[in-house]
C-alpha cells in the first residue's frame, strides 16, 4: 500500500452500520437554545490510558440533563468488547475486569448506540477535551465519521461561574467537595457521569443568576474566559 493510499484509506463499514450512520442528525451548534430547556448529554469515558491518539475506550457512561433535571431512567452505559487490552493501571482504577471487557459488546455497535443516544445535543464532561478527542479519533478510525458535536468542559465552566473558588487547578473531586456533593460510587462510568451531571445542574442554576441564559451566551462567556486566562498567564 502506498503511503498516500494509506493516509486516505477509508475504514470498512458494513451496510447495517452505514445505514445507522447516515440516519444520524447533524450536530446543533450553540445558538439561542435556553440552558434550562436544552438537552445535554453528560459523558464519562473510561479508557486504557490518557493518550487520545492511541488509547482505547473501555466503557461509555452517559446521563442526560434536560429541562433542568436528570432523568434517572434515561442513562446510558456500554462496556466495549476489547480482546487485545492488557490489564493495566486504568483498568484497575476503573475496576473493569478483563472478563467484563471480553463479554462487552462490539465496539462499533456500542459507539453507534451512543451516537443515537446523543442525537444532535451538545456534550458535557469534566476535562471534556480528552473525551472529545478520544471519541473523535475512535469514530474516525472505526467509521471515518467526523464527530462535530460541541463539547462543554465543566473544568472551564466551573471557574467561570465561581471565580472566587480559591483552589489551584481544581479537579473534579475538588468541585465535588466544594459543592459538598454526595457521590455514591466514584470511578464507575455511570456514577461519574451522574456526579458530573449534578455539577451541571448547579452550573445551569448559577448561570441563570449571572445572566447567561442561552448556549450561545455560555459559549461566548467561555471564549472570553479562556482569553482572560491566556492573558493573565
Amino acid at each position, binding site marked *: 500500500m502506498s503511503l498516500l493510499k494509506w493516509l486516505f484509506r477509508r475504514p470498512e463499514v458494513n451496510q447495517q452500520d452505514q445505514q445507522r450512520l447516515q440516519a444520524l442528525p447533524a450536530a446543533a451548534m450553540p445558538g439561542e437554545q435556553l440552558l434550562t430547556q436544552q438537552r445535554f448529554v453528560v459523558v464519562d469515558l473510561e479508557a486504557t490510558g490518557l493518550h487520545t491518539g492511541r488509547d482505547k475506550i473501555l466503557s461509555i457512561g452517559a446521563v442526560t440533563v434536560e429541562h433542568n433535571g436528570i432523568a434517572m431512567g434515561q*442513562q446510558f*452505559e456500554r462496556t466495549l468488547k476489547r480482546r487485545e487490552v492488557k490489564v493495566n493501571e486504568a483498568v484497575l482504577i476503573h475496576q473493569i475486569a478483563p472478563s467484563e471487557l471480553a463479554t462487552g459488546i462490539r465496539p462499533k455497535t456500542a459507539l453507534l448506540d451512543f451516537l443515537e443516544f446523543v442525537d444532535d445535543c451538545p456534550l458535557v464532561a469534566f476535562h471534556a477535551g480528552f473525551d472529545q478527542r478520544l471519541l473523535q479519533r475512535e469514530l474516525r478510525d472505526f467509521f471515518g465519521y467526523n464527530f462535530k458535536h460541541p463539547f462543554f468542559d465543566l473544568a472551564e465552566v466551573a471557574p467561570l461561574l465561581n471565580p472566587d473558588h480559591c483552589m489551584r487547578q481544581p479537579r473534579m473531586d475538588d468541585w465535588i467537595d466544594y459543592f459538598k456533593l454526595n457521590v455514591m460510587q466514584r470511578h464507575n462510568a455511570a456514577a461519574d457521569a451522574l456526579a458530573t451531571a449534578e455539577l451541571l445542574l448547579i452550573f445551569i442554576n448559577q448561570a441563570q443568576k449571572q445572566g447567561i441564559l442561552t448556549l450561545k451566551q455560555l459559549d461566548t462567556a467561555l471564549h472570553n474566559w479562556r482569553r482572560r486566562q491566556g492573558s493573565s498567564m
Partner: protein
Amino acid sequence: MSRQDAFAKAGRDAVQQNIQGTLDFFRQFPPFDAMEPAELGLLVENCVLRFYAQGESVISPADGPVEHLYIIKQGRVYGERSKGQDVGDETIFELGVGECFPMAALLGERATRTLHTADEDTFCFLLTKDAFVKLMSRSDTFRDFCVRGISSLLDQVNVQVQNRAAESLGSQISMDTPLSQLSSMREPVTCPASTPLHEAVQTMHEAQVGSIMIANELLQPQGIFTLRDLRRVIADPNTDLRQPMQQVMTPNPFSLSPDATAFDAALAMTERHIAHVCLVRDGKLVGMVSERDLFSLRRVDLVSLARTVRTAPSLEKLVQMRQDVKAMVERMIAHGASPEQVTRLITLLNDHTSCRIIELVLEKHGNPDIKFSWMVFGSEGRKEQTLHTDQDNGILFEAASIEEANAIRQKLLPIAREINVALDDCGFTLCRGNFMAGNAEFCLSRREWLVRYQKMMRDATAQNMQFAGVHFDLRCIWGPEQPCVELHRQVVAMVAADSVFQRVLAESALLNRPPLGGLFRNFTLSKKGAEKDSLDLKVKGLAPFVESMRVLALSQGIEATSTLERIRQLVGRGIIDRLDGDAYAEAYHFIQLIRMQQHHQQAAQGLTYSNLIYPDELNTLDRRILRESFRQAQRIQNSLALRYQL
C-alpha cells in the same frame, strides 16, 4: 433474540447497573428500606433529579396541583405553612435527606398549602404522579406509608424496640397478649361452697394446683381458696377440717375479662398483692391465671418483687432491691410494654418502696402517734416516673390551730428528713429545689397547704412556675388518702376559677421551646461543653406536653393528673380535637420511649442516667420521628399561646 430485543435488553441492563447506586441510596430510608427491589426499580426509573439553590422555592401553593412526589437526595428543605385562617397552626418545619413531600397534597390532588424552600443547596428526586400512583398500587409498604405517614413509621419503631430488647432475652411473649391466648391459661378447678375443707384440699392435691375456685352450678365465682389460705387455716389449732369452704374461702375474688392483657393481670396482682386472677366472661368463670403462669419464664417476677419490697426487713435490703426493680423494668420494655405501662409500673414499685421506707423509719423512731399523709408531686404524682427520678414530696396532717400545727411539725420534721435521706439512698435523688417533706414549708396542715397554694398562685410568675408547677400534680401514697383528695379537689377548683393564674401557667409552659426552632437547623442543640450537640429530652421534649396539658386540664377542672389521661379527658370535652389528641399522645409516647431506651442503655453500660440525647447517634427513623414529635410539641404550644393570647 432479535436485534431490537437485544438492543432493548442491553439498554435495560445498563440502566439497572446505573441505578444501583441510587437504589442503595433509597434503601437507607424508610419506607424504601422495606420495599421490594422491583418496586424500587420502578421508583428510580421514573425519577428526575433536580437542583435547588439555597433560598429557592422547591414547590409552593402558587404552583397549582402537585405533579410530583419530592424525595430529598441531598440538602435540606424547610416548609412554611401559609398564614391565614389557621394562625395558631402556623409552623415551620424542616425536611432532611430521604424525606418525602408534599404527600397530603399529592394524594388530595391539590396544590400544597406549604411553601417549601431549599434551606441549603439541595437535590431532590421528583417522581411523576403517574409513577407515584403505580407504585402505590404495587407496593403495600409504600401505600401504607403514603396514607398513614408518620404513624406507620411509629409501628416500625415499636417493632424495632421490641426486637432489640427481645434479642437479649430470647423471648417474644408480649405484655399485650390477651389472657385468653396465654398457653398456660387453665381450666379452673372448682368446687361448690358447701364442700368440706378436707375434700377441697384433696381435690387440689390430686389436680396438683395451688388454688381452687368456689363456684355455684352456673359457674359464677363465689370465692377462691389458695395454699396460702390453707397455711393460715391450718395454723389455727381449732380448725375443723370438715367445715364448708364457704367459711374459709376468700370471697369475691378479683376477676378480669379473658380479653384483658397479660399486663393488666400483672399490674392487678402487683397492686393487690394477689397471686391469682380468675377470668370471667358474662358472669361465668372461664379460666384462671396465676403469677406463675405469667412469669414462669422470668427469674424475678413482678408480683413477688412488689411483695418483697413491701415487706423488706431493712433499708439495706430495699437498696439492694433497686437492682431487681431495674431488671424488671428492662424485661417490661423487652416484652413490648408501652411507655405508659412502664411508667405506671415504675411508679407502682416506687410507691411500694416509699411506703416501706416510711414504715421502716417510723419503726425505728417509735410511732409519733400522729396521723399524717405522705404526698408526692410531679412525675410521681402523675404516675409517670422513670428510673431516673428525683424527690418531690410533702406531708399533710390535721391540726386545729397554728400552735398545734407547729408542735406537730416539730415532731414530724426529723422523721421526714430521715425519710428523704433514705429515699435518696434508694435512688430517689434529693430534690435540688428542696421541695421535700423534710423542709418545714412542705410539712403542713391541710389549712396551711391551702394557704400555701393560694400564695403560690398569687405570687406566680412564669419563671417560678417552671419549678413550682409540679405541685399541681399531687397524689397521696401513704397514710389517710381522703385529706389529700380533698386538698387536690380544692386546688383544682381554685385554678379553674382563676384565669389570671392559668395565663401565668400557660406562659410558663411556653418557656421550654421544643428544639426544632432555630428555624433552619434540624435540631437546636447545646453548643458548649460536655453537653455539646445534645438536647434534653425531658425539659425540651416532654415538658411542653406535660405543662400544656396541665394548664388545659386545670382550667377545665379536670382532676386527673396523668398527661395521657388529661389528653383523653380534654378530647372527651372537645377542648382538643380528636386527631390532635392522638397526635399529641403518640408524640409524647415516642419521646418517653426514646428516653426510656436511653436509660436502659445507660444502665447496661454502667453509666449514670441522663436525659441528654445526641440526635446524631440516633438511627434515621428514630431521628425523624423524634423531630416529628417535637413538631407536635410545638403545635400544642402554639395553640396554647393562641388560647391565652400570649
